[in-house]
């Protein structure tokens, strides 16, 4: 008799079963040490991992598993999902680890029927450092949201293991990595490289009908002054970046082109000084240029994403045109109000995405005021909220809320309640991030707000990419 499996009333989706079988084949028949599963948001990657684990436990291949997850709240969600859908897959959540408690935990694992431990990646770093557990204590490791396992900030090594999971690549036991589909290929290759040749990648673009979103034509806002300001800032931004690149080229420094801000870190500059013989004066020049580069980016965001209060506090408000622009109401915010009002009248539940906390707060305040919303109608969740508060707010939105305004706080694996539409107020910085955001609503409409001219082309491109992805996805 199986010791674990799906509970009554639960079954795998049609496309999940073959992925589970493929995963098991890689581990069992091909004796792979590492299997990477890369699937789109909302396709139940966690359930696939749990189903594979369940089979391995039943086949007596795995007795104790270690599950590593980026954040504490996600650990709770992961373990709860395991218990809700599967019998016999009890996991210890975030056990308090100390020299004294480790023996107790080993005892519980042995005698209390738990199949393993789920913990954050930060905890993993600690257990490795303090040698509380080693790979001998487990038969398998599952890493959820594994895209951050490698980071690309190191100019010498290129992709580098995350400091939290450093050491995991040396473990010889089977490891299952789960990551979103839209992680850049370069990153996936780097990830596999870190874990050696005995690895397999299962990467599929599957989408269920209910996950397909309808991408509407972006709502275009006409504000000529914005174009003037942003074009000038873009110009400055490019010039400054070129000047930094020129210095990097002069010294033959590779890397940092994508994230030149990292050069502001004194430790990074110290390394550059040693590795490339950069002088103090050059370092100062780099820092001054990057400071300007950062300031220009900030100002651009303020103009594009309604940072009027910041702009009015800045020196820019001393400039005639900016002062003129500040004197009228924000056109983008007003367009948002119109769109939200129409959709609320149709009884829709909405999800509004903003990249920055300040923008999310601004949107919430503005909608509340203009549409006379009650506090329970609109929920704002940002990184400024404690994890517990985030989940209470989500629950409140699910039960009584009409609008959920969030920043990328949920971009990693959190299940958020279904909505009829997502309004993207601030475009996410990358396609990968965009899919993480869109994937959260599970179907519905996607609406972008964009300024005519400066943003229009790029927003149309994003919308087209989304449409093509949804159209080409196998069901």
């Amino acid at each position, binding site marked *: 008799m199986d010791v674990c499996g799906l509970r009554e009333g639960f079954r795998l989706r049609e496309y999940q079963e073959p992925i589970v079988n493929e995963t098991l084949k890689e581990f069992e028949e091909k004796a792979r040490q590492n299997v990477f599963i890369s699937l789109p948001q909302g396709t139940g990657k966690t359930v696939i991992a749990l189903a594979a684990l369940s089979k391995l436990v039943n086949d007596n291949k795995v007795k104790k598993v270690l599950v590593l997850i980026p954040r504490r709240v996600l650990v709770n969600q992961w373990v709860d999902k395991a218990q809700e859908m599967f019998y016999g897959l009890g996991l210890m959540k975030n056990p308090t680890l100390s020299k004294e408690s480790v023996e107790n935990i080993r005892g519980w694992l042995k005698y209390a029927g738990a199949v393993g431990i789920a913990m954050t990646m930060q905890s993993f770093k600690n257990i490795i450092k303090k040698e509380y557990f080693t790979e001998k204590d487990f038969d398998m490791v599952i890493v959820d949201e594994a895209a951050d396992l490698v980071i690309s900030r190191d100019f010498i090594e290129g992709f580098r293991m995350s400091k939290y999971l450093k050491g995991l690549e040396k473990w010889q036991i089977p490891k299952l990595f789960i990551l979103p589909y839209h992680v850049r290929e370069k990153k996936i290759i780097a990830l596999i490289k870190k874990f050696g040749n005995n690895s397999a990648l299962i990467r599929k673009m599957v989408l269920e009908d209910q996950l397909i979103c309808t991408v509407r034509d972006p709502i275009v806002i006409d504000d000529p002054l914005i174009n*003037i*300001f942003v074009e*000038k*800032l873009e110009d*400055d931004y490019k010039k400054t970046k070129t000047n930094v690149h020129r210095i990097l080229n002069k010294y033959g420094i590779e890397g940092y082109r994508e994230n030149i801000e990292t050069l*502001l870190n*004194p430790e990074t500059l110290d390394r550059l000084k040693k590795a490339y013989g950069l002088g103090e004066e050059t370092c*100062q020049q780099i*820092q*001054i240029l990057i*400071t*300007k580069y950062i*300031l*220009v980016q*900030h*100002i651009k965001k303020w103009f594009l994403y309604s940072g009027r209060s910041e702009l009015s*506090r*800045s*020196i*820019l*408000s*001393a*400039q*005639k*045109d*900016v*002062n003129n622009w500040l004197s009228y109401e924000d056109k983008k915010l007003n367009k948002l109000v119109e769109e939200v009002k129409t959709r609320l009248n149709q009884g829709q539940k909405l999800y509004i995405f903003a990249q920055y906390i300040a923008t999310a707060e601004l949107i919430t305040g503005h909608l509340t005021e203009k549409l006379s919303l009650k506090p329970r109608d609109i929920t704002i969740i940002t990184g400024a909220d404690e994890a517990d508060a985030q989940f209470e707010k989500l629950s409140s939105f699910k039960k009584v809320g009409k609008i959920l305004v969030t920043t990328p706080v949920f971009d990693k694996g959190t299940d958020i309640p279904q909505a009829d539409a997502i309004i993207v107020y601030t475009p996410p910085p990358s396609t990968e991030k965009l899919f993480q955001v869109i994937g959260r609503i599970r179907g519905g409409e996607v609406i972008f707000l964009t300024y005519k001219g400066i943003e229009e082309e790029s927003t149309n491109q994003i919308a087209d990419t989304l449409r093509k992805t949804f159209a080409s996805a196998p069901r």
Partner: protein
Amino acid sequence: MNIIAISDIYSDISIVEELTHITKRIADGKPIIIIAGDIGLRTTPTRYKQDINHIINILSQISKQILYIPGDSDVKELEITTPNAQNLDGQNCIIDDGNVKIGFLGLGGAPTHSMRSTDLSPYLWNESIPIVAENLLTELKINIEKIAQAQPDYIILITHSPPYGIADRSKPITLQEMLILEDILEELKGETKPETKETTKKTTTSIRHLGSRIISNFVKYYKPDVHIFGHVHKEGGKTETQEATKFFNVSHLSPLPYRLTGRKYLHLTINKQGITSSFDHVITERNILFSEFIERYL
């Protein structure tokens, strides 16, 4: 009564000179100038003393009286010799211009938790130590009681640190970074840099409230009419009103820490009927093109 409030000058003489040009336009005679701390930057002791005296001298020419407090980057005992300048740290005073009577009280320095490193900040206090917190609170209470006896029309509290929870959200401040980032380094060439490595105390760097709980408790119960503070540059220029108190973060005069939000000062006009306030720029050229403006001021 006209009041100009500034803080966080960091020895930036040129910005003070720019301020004098613009404040000359203020009608109704010379204003009272309030400086809520961080007047100088202790690069070298000699240079520091020269800087703060120079700044106060310039400002004294355009003001009736200067009320100042030291900030975390200043020394507690500032040696300023200008006759119409008064150190309000742990002190109080009453100014009556015949139309309105205002009581002022002050508290200098900043809480240790607001700084990422302690070097370059000689005036910090640790409010998590009960006796320190109690002394600071008692000092404030004694001063407000003294003022209240004179029955002023308004009471203005001047501190360097914001109260906890009001215009105080930022990463812990680091003057070291400011020094690294800005052109000030050019001026410092050849001078002895302060020893920092041994004294640097690292703290966490996430965005959080950096204000003082002692000050917020005091304001909550004693309700001054106006509270002027600086220190948290990121929130410079923010105004809030809570219950009876108007709060002003004036930490953005100097363009040094944040070029973008710098060059601004608070102008208060106070009479028996009420208080009006506005933040304004020291920038006089307002009719130039946006592109030119960016080139010149960024």
